[in-house]
């Protein structure tokens, strides 16, 4: 067991015993990473904050279900992603998702940047329509397949592909614009 795992194990035990100090430490360690996840799934910083809060409350109540198989951070991330998706599924019912045609034939300019400022990209991702943003997050960053995404969001695989394609184009455009 690595020192990190030992530390996590102790913290988890403390949190299950409802020790406030352990709860605070766990939050301090993982909140920045989880906030970044929430941030790129949310459509604005306020929603990201809400997702972070509710996600942590959910995580604390589910902590006893963690079986110490695999990384704790990965488990925690999945909780936050799933929690964000729950939020988004409600949002996807709104017509926001098809507000797409405007970016339709955006030329995919050659993309020449080798370093991306993650903070800037975060802000730009939030500006994407919810459907694009979610599919980009799930496909590009989390590495889900289109089939999985289709299941998770209740859409068809083709929709997932289209959303990804259009979302990617839009994001590229935004970044390019930003850099010029």
């Amino acid at each position, binding site marked *: 067991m690595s020192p990190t795992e030992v530390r996590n194990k102790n913290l988890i035990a403390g949190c299950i015993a409802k020790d406030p100090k352990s709860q605070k430490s766990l939050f301090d360690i993982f909140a920045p990473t989880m906030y970044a996840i929430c941030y790129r799934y949310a459509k604005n910083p306020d929603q990201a904050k809400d997702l972070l809060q509710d996600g942590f409350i959910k995580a*604390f109540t589910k902590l006893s279900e963690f079986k110490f198989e695999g990384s704790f951070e990965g488990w925690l991330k999945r909780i936050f992603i799933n929690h964000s998706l729950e939020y988004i599924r409600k949002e996807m019912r709104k017509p926001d998702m098809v507000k797409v045609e405007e970016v339709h034939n955006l030329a995919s300019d050659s*993309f020449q940047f*080798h370093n*991306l400022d993650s*903070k800037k990209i975060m802000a730009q991702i939030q500006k994407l329509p919810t459907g694009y943003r979610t599919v980009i997050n799930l496909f590009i960053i989390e590495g889900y397949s289109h089939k999985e995404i289709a299941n998770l969001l209740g859409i068809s695989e083709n929709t997932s592909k289209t959303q990804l394609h259009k979302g990617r184009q839009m994001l590229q455009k935004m970044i390019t614009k930003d850099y010029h």
Partner: protein
Amino acid sequence: MDNTQNTTHFDAMLKQSLENSQMPVPTGVWETIGSSLGSQAIVATKIASLKLILLKSVAGLIISSAIGFGIYQLLPEKVIVPKTIVSKNGSFSPKETISLDTFFEASNDQPKNFNSISKKPAKDTALRLIQNKTAAVQSTVLGQGLVNLPTNHQEIIKLTAETLPTEKYSEVKNKKPATQENTAQPYNNVVFPEPANVFTPDGDGINDNFYIVVENEKSFNLQIFDEQGKKVFESNDKNKFWDGTNSLTGEICKPGVYIYTYYYELNSGFKKKDRSRLTLY
């Protein structure tokens, strides 16, 4: 750079820059989470303590009912209610028996045994019956504290019918053959005859006062209410009779139905509490 390469390159960069990125957490988030967790903990403890209280009360209930049942099983005598003492045509059923204790008064300190108490006159109407010389009472000791009353004497019937109309008497559960030893035993669970349910304060000497028949009592309380539930009489003294006037206003009460409740505790520890109605003519 063709399109596919471009895309792959973009995706890789995006993933690299975002996958493990961290962001400074806005202030106030932990405070919200902490207070939410705290309140959850408080709710959890409250539920736990409520469960504990419930469990304790259920256990208490079971224990007390078990004790109650045990006492009930151990009690040697039971009070039963004979169907009728006085039949409609005014004659006694020879089979009916009433407690001897009903008719005798024991002094407070003396042991209540048959010989001593039988000599001592009592005030209550029932005792007067037995002491009435013309009544020729031929009381027969049947068993533990039981007297068989004569069947054919008009005066007894009349008086008793007036005084002892509807009635609970103690009856010994297991009737034993009459022996001196049995009759000499003290009686602890005495139930006195119910008071008359008809009340005629007209000065003819019959049922002019309403009172509860009780002897040897430690505490006593009688309350009488009219039909509207207003109290017309209350006494802690058994010798204070109700004469049909409102003891608060001094008015003469109207004929009608009155409710009375009474309570007494005997020196033996026996308690009785009852309520019934009486008719004022």
